[in-house]
């Protein structure tokens, strides 16, 4: 199953996606996409190194579909994480 | 492991004795509850120094009748989030009147030191690697709302003194 690795940045909590062996992006479309389990495991191992180095917390892989070359989350939870709260925000300051 | 008392790393004169280990009469031995409960009169009546180690699921009520026999009680934190030993410590000190050494063992973290002191612990077994920082830890909180048996004066008493 195609997967992407995500975490939260330790210092500010922002959602980040593993974009390369040691680079993280706040944009899902920049995430490294693992097409097989071995690649996913390698990405997770890289993420755990970033956890140990106090860059990120709570790293895990989640399944994505790929559309137009970009990863698209399958589960509702990851859709909300990627897009932000689905509730109206027009009254925000 | 290192032992901390009163903010210093001190030599540990006690030995943890596993149930399958021989007891020799020169040791200052910390034994398990199981060993104590199956012990014969020799162990109960000799006046060698004796300590006992209780797990979180072993309530000190199990030794209340024999408490005078122990110079040390070690209470185990299987995980630092398992808070039973805090209640057991206060029960030993404040209800059963235990005055010997009350040792915190297991996962003992410096961020819990003040709570442990307040509940009556007076010695702390920690990993060698964290011993120096643990020994140097000074409580960051100086205000206490609760009256426990550790002698720190709670806020209410201080308020009354002022008034």
């Amino acid at each position, binding site marked *: 199953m195609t997967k992407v690795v995500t975490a*939260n940045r*330790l*210092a*500010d*909590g*922002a*959602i980040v996606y593993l974009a390369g062996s040691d680079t993280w992006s706040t944009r899902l479309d920049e995430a490294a996409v693992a097409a097989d389990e071995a690649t996913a495991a390698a990405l997770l191992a890289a993420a755990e190194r970033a*956890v140990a*180095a*106090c860059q990120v*917390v*709570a790293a895990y892989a989640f399944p994505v579909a790929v559309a137009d070359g970009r990863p698209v989350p*399958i*589960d*509702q*939870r990851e859709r*909300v*994480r990627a897009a*932000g*709260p*689905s*509730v*109206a925000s027009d*009254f*925000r*300051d | 492991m290192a032992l901390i008392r009163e903010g210093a790393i001190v030599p540990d004169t006690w030995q943890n004795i596993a149930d399958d280990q021989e007891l020799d009469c020169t040791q200052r031995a910390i034994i398990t509850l199981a060993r104590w409960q199956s012990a014969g009169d020799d162990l109960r009546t000799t006046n060698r120094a004796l300590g006992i180690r209780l797990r*979180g699921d072993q*309530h000190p009520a199990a030794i209340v009748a024999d408490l005078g026999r122990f110079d040390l009680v070690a209470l185990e934190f299987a995980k*630092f*989030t*398992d*808070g*039973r030993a*805090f*209640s*057991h410590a*206060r*029960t030993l000190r404040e*209800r059963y009147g235990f005055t010997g050494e009350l040792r915190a063992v297991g996962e003992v*973290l410096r*961020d819990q030191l003040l*709570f*442990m002191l*307040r*509940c009556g612990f007076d010695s702390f077994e920690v990993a060698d690697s964290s011993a120096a920082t643990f020994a140097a830890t000074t409580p*960051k*909180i*100086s*205000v*206490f*709302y*609760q*009256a*426990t048996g550790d002698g720190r004066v709670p*806020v*209410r008493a*201080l*308020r*009354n003194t002022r*008034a």
Partner: protein
Amino acid sequence: MYRYDAFDQTLVDERVEQFRDQVARRLSGALSEDQFRPLRLLNGLYLQLHAYMLRVAIPYGTLSSRQLRTLAHIARTFDRGYGHFTTRQNIQFNWVRLDQAADILAALASVEMHAIQTSGNTIRNVTADHLAGVAADEIEDPRIYAEIIRQWSTLHPEFSFLPRKFKIAVTGAARDRTALKVHDIGIQVVRDAAGEAGFSVLVGGGQGRTPMIGHVIRPFLPKADLLAYLEAILRVYNEFGRRDNLYKARIKILVQTLGPAAFTAMVEEQWQALRGPALALPDEELARIAAHFAPPTYARLPAASAALAAARAEPVFERWCRHNLLPHKQPGYAIATISLKPEGGVPGDATAAQLEALADLAERWSLDEVRVSHEQNLVLPHVRQDDVPALWRELRAHGLATPNAGLITDIIACPGLDYCNLANARSIPIAQQIQRRFANRERQEEIGAIKIKISGCINACGHHHVGHIGILGVDKKGAEFYQITLGGDGSERAALGEITGRAFAAAEVVDAIDTIIDTYLGARRHGEAFIDTYRRVGMVPFKEALYGAH
């Protein structure tokens, strides 16, 4: 209201610096996330779906204008310009940074506030009746005892690592506005046969996966024994509550397993051992705390205001008065509910600008006081009836005059999967859909008093078990579904809702609610509220309407 003395202030100040040090050690790697998590939770800091979230305690739901302004300042400076009021008299900021958390706590401490024990397996923020001190049915102001409990529970050395979280609510009235019976401990001020005030103590209520109504384990506890008795309950729980299974770790399971009688015997035995000068509440201390909650200086006014009566000729204003004004025990005053449930809004959210506006209005017209209700609304507790028309105009200008308190659009909803790491489904969009469906004000009035409560997972932060209509979000193979319960009640007539049947897909929920409402309107006798009709006719007609007769 309660004001910190030097001791209270020193404690919160020291706590800020303690946490600052812990955060620094986390950022440097000296603390692992496993070691840090319980420490941050004890300071109200979560890692949620999108960011860190800070939950700030509003003890017993009372705020001054100065405190409200600081909350607004925090929302603007450290968050995205809004805050979210919860079902337990807390406010949550959804977008804070770990490396600024201590600064936020310092800002709170500067106005006698904190986030201590708003999370973690410890005694949480103590809640109380949001109409404390102003309700006519009150024996005594429960905030006196809530404040005493707040101090006793704050950094309690023995009870900071309990088997699970622990929630205490206090009320001084017969009408329960605190969901007392679904708390770990519920304390109600009562009088004994001699007319002496004391406490009825209820233990073992709760929501979550295994909802239960609490048991009264002591019908009358003398005031002086409050803390000794609480300490006895907590010690029994700390020693014997289950720690091997997260889902069976709440005190309700211990009470159920032992049986209320055996549990009570253990508490009473422990209590007898703990009673003594160290925990006794002396009269002087009671008086010192009670003085902080003495009634404010009210003006002497006629019972009814002619100005208010005249202004109520305007229908829009009259509608707001009808639903959002409550009688005050002081002649000439009123209690105003500020609904945080505008149509299509996020239940419980308020912007920084709204918080500031409310601070101004409270200062001007409510003796500098605002209350937070567990229903995610705010309350201006001391408004002169003469001032109500002017207040309403200002509220309207700030989008705070939604005339729906207690009606079908006044929905409790947890943050759900839009914000929460634990959620299985979204809650807020369901609330918004229901609000839009029932937006017509005449229809809302025709339906009358009803409480819809929505939770996005089984943890039940949205109190769905005690909603007249409860909605629970569940995950079915990655899709959001919603289970509906009927007949729940969080009041003094507490009851747990009964599941209607199979869960509904997200797109079906509003129609199902509509069906339930139509069934009620068809079955009700004149003037009967939804919950009373349900109690009379039971589940069957609703089930038939929802799923067909088979």
